[in-house]
């Protein structure tokens, strides 16, 4: 094996959807270099087509994508759009990829996204500010990535004219496809998936009846910027529908040719979302019905989402897969209305119901393009085109050094995609050279000049942004005029301000003229502040001695029709900037020295995996386990659904954890106290039978405390020897196969103790346990009679195939309703069970010699409550830790420096726990990459002499940061302050100022505006 130091420090990521972006950010934040390749001309992937996403019903891409362009990160991320992989050579640590990029005809370095070309030649300019087809309210971040246009040369008739309109001279009609070789230590594949082949949906009349639409089309109809402007109207006649039906599994879970036999996993949730949004917006007069086979809402708190849809929104659910949709005729012509025909369970006659509109919940499939890509890379796929991965290594493909995440691995939703992306980043990072010197690229600045005692020397630089500013106002004249203001030493027009030349010029003048305040008249500080701040830093000036005046976006662009007004306003805005810059003072970004040690609480598979991943990356890890052995719940599991040996895996992992030079394992250890901030935590632990107290200092904390195996005292569990849990049966099959073989009749009951009031969520693992054990019993004894009583069989993704196999082998699956639970009574050595047979529609009694209860998980309330109190962390109502953002930050806890993984987050399988453990390790590495944590400078500062300890800041802070300290005045921890300034404006004693936005500074702007500049 190679020495790691010889390996590349770069990761190639293919696919710029949510997964690719997340992996790129994780790696970049951890100091790794990334080449992010996407074949489209802007990144975003499938998610850009969605209206809003469950379960927050928010737009989320907008929060993630712009972070790619944040200062520093972009130094590590090389974004290549319109690019594809031609081929890859080499192996782990030293891949060489050949990339080709199609011509964009726009020079990304020059394009300012001014939009001139788009306005004049809308037909041949592709403009997607990430999200152009979405609701305008969603366009929070117009700086799409990349924030540039793309030209469709074939659609362009007058190329010369097009080139001429670009003020930045960015259009290059001679742009050619380009090739590039990229060396990378590891490759992450996140190419996403396509949706179901629509041509197969003709049984449902898709493409024939206009009012049969796919779920994606329905999202577009709901969207405010969609074809209907957000009006919910049906395509055929523009009328508002009164009855809408969703048909689940359109194209999934079917053995028909061309259809997917697997489950597409995300459709149940998005159908719920669409139905709920529909009800929410048109509650009074619209009926929503979902036709389904099983509602697969197995994710964290998804069950509650389902309950909300049922109980709060009145969404109707019909358990049936409709066989056809027919148009309704009246007077011989189609009315647009549709009849859905379906059979109810046990019903003898088909039912027909009329709807105004039908939404087909389409699933995912892998495109041929992606299959070809896999072939080029030598990555093995399963028969459906998804990447083959291992049970205990969820993102590793068949080829070392190449990782798969997101839909390409198996159908899944966004949180799971993000978890896998993190896991892939973690694995890829492990294949690179060890931690390099961090921030070598960023921290190349001279020491800061001490300006205290200096007279104020203001430099004014006005950018003309080509014609954007300079074409409307006389930039030179204004600069000359501003020179007359007091304390202004330099005032000049600098041409294109953000060009390298200009920036260097500014830097020179700062040094030469000993400037100590700088005003830049240019574009929006939102997009360019960081650029100019860097210039100040390079000139040895504190970056906060800067005021950027937004001349372009808020003056010359807006008032280009009235240049005289624009000129006056520009002058006024500049005066405001000069007034304010005088009162700026050097500020320090709040940083914390970073302790890079890691505390992992919980020594199950999740905790061990996270610990080992981080230890391999060179971090010192304390692994704290409550019991006297590592392994956790996995110790009780023998085989996975896929047949892998769990004990062998656990044994290897325990050995690695216990013998790793970077891991210190503390068994019989209980966390008792905790103080400090991220990067400098102190946690007290009592260890061993004597409960010896010791304090651990660490930078981050990972909670992997798991959940408890549920054993509710129900259905004779614990009081009758024929009543087992799935775990008991798993052990019985493995340890005493002859006993298992003797079981002639077995009944399994699902959701015992889960999806009930006391434990509302789905335990997630029970359906697969039941199928797994049923298959194994059938293997031992093909004649065994096995009945599985279930509420919804939740076998997402490829697991569906095991479910199909079990049914083929004669396992009987019969649904029961929660209101009509199976009744159990002892019957000698056997157990008598009565349930309502859904086909016969009446009570049936069976006697079985094995009653197997799928009891799942229950939160370890005691531990999470104790730890929640000690660490100040929120929990869900059913006792799991509550992550910061269910969708975007699934393993980050709200308090910086805390992460959660595994069953402590929500019930999950070993495989999913491993993925989360790796994701957590990845997130942790982003946190641990720096030597200090930058908290920014815009924080509230309390003048303790003025503070009246009135508590108003304490009460008004939206984040609960201020507190009254032991000296009796308010204290605001700059590392925790979010910088909104609410406390400052509420403080009745004027004791709080928000740095960068001090009251004086705001008043100085007003004075500048009214020409009272001192």
């Amino acid at each position, binding site marked *: 094996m190679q020495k790691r130091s010889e390996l590349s420090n770069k990761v190639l990521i293919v696919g710029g959807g949510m997964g690719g972006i997340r992996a790129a950010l994780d790696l970049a934040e951890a100091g790794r270099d990334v080449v992010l390749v996407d074949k489209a001309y802007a990144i975003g992937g499938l998610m850009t087509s969605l209206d809003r996403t469950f379960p927050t019903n928010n737009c989320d891409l907008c929060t993630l994508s712009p972070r790619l362009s944040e200062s520093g990160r972009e130094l590590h991320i090389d974004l290549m759009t319109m690019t594809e992989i031609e081929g890859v050579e080499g192996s782990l640590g030293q891949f060489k990829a050949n990339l080709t990029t199609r011509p964009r005809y726009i020079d990304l370095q020059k394009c300012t996204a001014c939009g001139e070309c788009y306005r004049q030649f809308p037909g041949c300019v592709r403009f997607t500010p990430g999200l152009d087809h979405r609701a305008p309210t969603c366009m929070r971040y117009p700086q799409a990535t990349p924030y540039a246009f793309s030209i469709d040369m074939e659609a362009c008739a007058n190329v010369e004219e097009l080139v001429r309109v670009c003020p930045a001279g960015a259009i290059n009609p001679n742009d050619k496809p380009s090739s590039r070789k990229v060396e990378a230590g590891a490759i992450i594949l996140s190419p996403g998936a396509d949706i179901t082949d629509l041509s197969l949906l003709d049984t449902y009349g898709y493409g024939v009846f206009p009012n049969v639409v796919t779920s994606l089309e329905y999202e577009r109809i709901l969207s405010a910027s969609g074809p209907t402007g957000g009006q919910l109207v049906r395509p055929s006649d523009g009328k508002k529908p009164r009855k809408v039906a969703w048909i689940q599994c359109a194209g999934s879970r079917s053995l028909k040719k061309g259809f997917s036999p697997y489950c597409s996993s995300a459709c149940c949730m998005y159908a719920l979302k669409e139905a709920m949004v529909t009800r929410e917006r048109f509650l009074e007069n619209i009926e929503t019905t979902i036709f389904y086979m099983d509602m697969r809402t197995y994710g964290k708190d998804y069950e509650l989402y389902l309950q909300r849809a049922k109980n709060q929104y009145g969404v109707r659910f019909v358990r049936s897969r409709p066989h056809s949709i027919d148009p309704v005729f009246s007077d011989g012509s189609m009315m647009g209305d549709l009849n859905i025909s379906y059979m109810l369970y046990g019903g003898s006659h088909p039912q027909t119901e009329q709807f105004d509109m039908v939404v087909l919940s389409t699933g995912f499939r892998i495109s041929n393009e992606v299959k070809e890509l896999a072939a080029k890379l030598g990555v093995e796929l399963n028969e459906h085109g998804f990447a083959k991965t291992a049970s205990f290594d969820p993102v590793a493909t068949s080829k070392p050094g190449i990782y798969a995440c997101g839909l390409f691995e198996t159908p899944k939703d966004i949180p799971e995609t993000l978890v896998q992306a993190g896991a892939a980043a973690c694995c890829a990072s492990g294949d690179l050279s060890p931690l390099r010197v961090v921030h070598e690229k960023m921290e190349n600045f001279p020491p800061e000049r001490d300006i205290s005692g200096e007279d104020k020397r203001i430099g004014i630089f006005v950018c003309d942004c080509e014609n954007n500013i300079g074409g409307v106002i006389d930039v030179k004249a204004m600069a000359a005029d501003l020179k007359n203001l007091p304390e202004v030493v330099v005032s000049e027009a600098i041409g294109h301000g953000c060009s390298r030349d200009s920036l260097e010029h500014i830097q020179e003048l700062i040094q030469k003229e000993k400037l100590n305040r700088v005003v830049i008249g240019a574009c929006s500080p939102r997009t360019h502040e960081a650029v100019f701040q860097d210039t100040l830093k390079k000139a040895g000036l504190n970056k906060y001695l800067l005021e950027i005046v937004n001349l372009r976006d808020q003056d010359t662009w807006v008032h280009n029709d009235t240049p005289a007004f624009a000129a006056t306003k520009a002058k006024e805005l500049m005066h405001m900037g000069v007034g304010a810059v005088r009162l700026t003072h050097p500020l320090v970004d709040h940083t914390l020295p970073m302790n890079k040690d890691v505390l992992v609480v919980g020594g199950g598979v999740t905790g061990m995996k996270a610990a080992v991943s981080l230890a391999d990356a060179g971090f010192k890890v304390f692994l704290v386990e409550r019991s006297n052995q590592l392994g956790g719940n996995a110790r009780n599991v023998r085989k996975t659904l896929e047949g892998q040996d769990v004990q062998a895996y656990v044994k290897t992992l325990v050995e690695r954890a216990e013998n790793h030079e970077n891991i210190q394992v503390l068994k019989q250890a209980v966390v008792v106290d905790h103080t400090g901030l991220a990067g400098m935590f102190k946690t007290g632990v009592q260890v061993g039978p004597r409960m010896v107290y010791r304090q651990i200092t660490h930078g981050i904390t990972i909670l992997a405390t798991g959940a408890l195996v549920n054993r509710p005292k129900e259905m004779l569990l614990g009081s009758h020897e024929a009543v087992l849990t799935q775990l008991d049966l798993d052990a019985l099959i493995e340890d005493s196969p002859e006993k298992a073989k003797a079981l002639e009749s077995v009944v399994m009951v699902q959701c015992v103790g889960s999806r009930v009031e006391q434990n509302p969520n789905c335990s997630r693992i029970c359906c697969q346990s039941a199928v797994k054990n049923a298959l194994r019993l059938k293997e031992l004894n093909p004649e065994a009679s096995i009945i599985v009583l279930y509420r919804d069989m939740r076998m997402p993704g490829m697991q569906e195939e095991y479910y199909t196999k079990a049914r083929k082998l004669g396992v009987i699956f019969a649904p029961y309703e929660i209101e009509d639970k199976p009744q159990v009574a002892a019957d000698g050595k056997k157990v008598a069970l009565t349930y309502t047979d859904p086909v016969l529609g009446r009570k049936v009694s069976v006697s079985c010699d094995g009653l197997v209860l799928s009891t799942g998980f229950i939160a370890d309330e005691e531990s999470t409550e104790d730890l929640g109190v000690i660490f100040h962390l929120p929990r869900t109502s059913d006792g799991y830790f509550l992550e910061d953002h269910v969708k975007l930050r699934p393993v980050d806890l709200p308090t910086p420096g805390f992460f959660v993984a595994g069953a402590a987050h929500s019930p999950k399988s070993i495989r999913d726990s491993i993925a989360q453990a790796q994701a957590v390790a990845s997130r942790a590495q982003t946190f641990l990459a720096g030597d200090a944590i930058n908290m920014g400078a815009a924080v509230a500062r309390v003048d303790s002499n*003025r503070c*009246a*300890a*009135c*508590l*108003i800041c304490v*009460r*008004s802070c939206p984040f609960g940061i201020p507190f009254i300290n032991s000296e009796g005045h308010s204290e605001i921890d700059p590392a925790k302050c979010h910088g909104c300034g609410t406390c400052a404006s509420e*403080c*009745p*004693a*004027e*004791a709080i100022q928000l740095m960068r936005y001090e009251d004086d500074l705001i008043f100085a702007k007003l004075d500048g505006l009214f020409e009272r500049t001192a």
Partner: protein
Amino acid sequence: MITAERKSMEELINCVSPYRRLLLVGCNECVTVCSAGGRKEVALLSSALQLHFMKEGKPFEIKEITLERQCDPEYVEELVAHIDSADAVLSMACGCGVQEIARRFKEKPVMPAVNTKFMGASERQGVWAERCAGCGDCVLGLTGGVCPIARCSKQLMNGPCGGSTKGKCEVDPEIDCAWQLIWDRLKALGMTEKYEENMPAKDWRTGRGAGPRKIVREDLA
């Protein structure tokens, strides 16, 4: 704490309009805490008065200063440096502060900018409620920690009256019936038998009944 509320602008404008140069004095104690007369309110009132007199075209100067506590002579002494340049003083403190300034600067008109309201507690941000009437003879030990004098509209010592409705006072449904609160507390404390002991007529001499009061701590004075 003592609570107060700024007077109406009309009243304030009327009372300061005879003067050209005004010293506006805030207090960093109770009136800051109840957002009536701290630095922020001083600045806001100053701004509003200036704006008004600008509109009137009347020359008007205002100087702002906020003392740590207006009811202590040592702090009030800080005004010495500013008092001569003012024609009048407008105090944003409670009545105690206004009087302290008036006592110190006998020649200078001193006017209150706030109405002193009551001794109360902050129920939440921006809401203060009366809690104590300063009767000088505390009965809270007998009434479950809820004062019938300050909190019953009729200051009944043996309530509730017949107007108590769903826990609220007949005077205003926003007011909690103090006797309902007392009863609830007594129940929670297992002290309901206390309720039927009739409280005798109160001796108001400990309160305002015997004229202005004074506390003298011999050991400190």
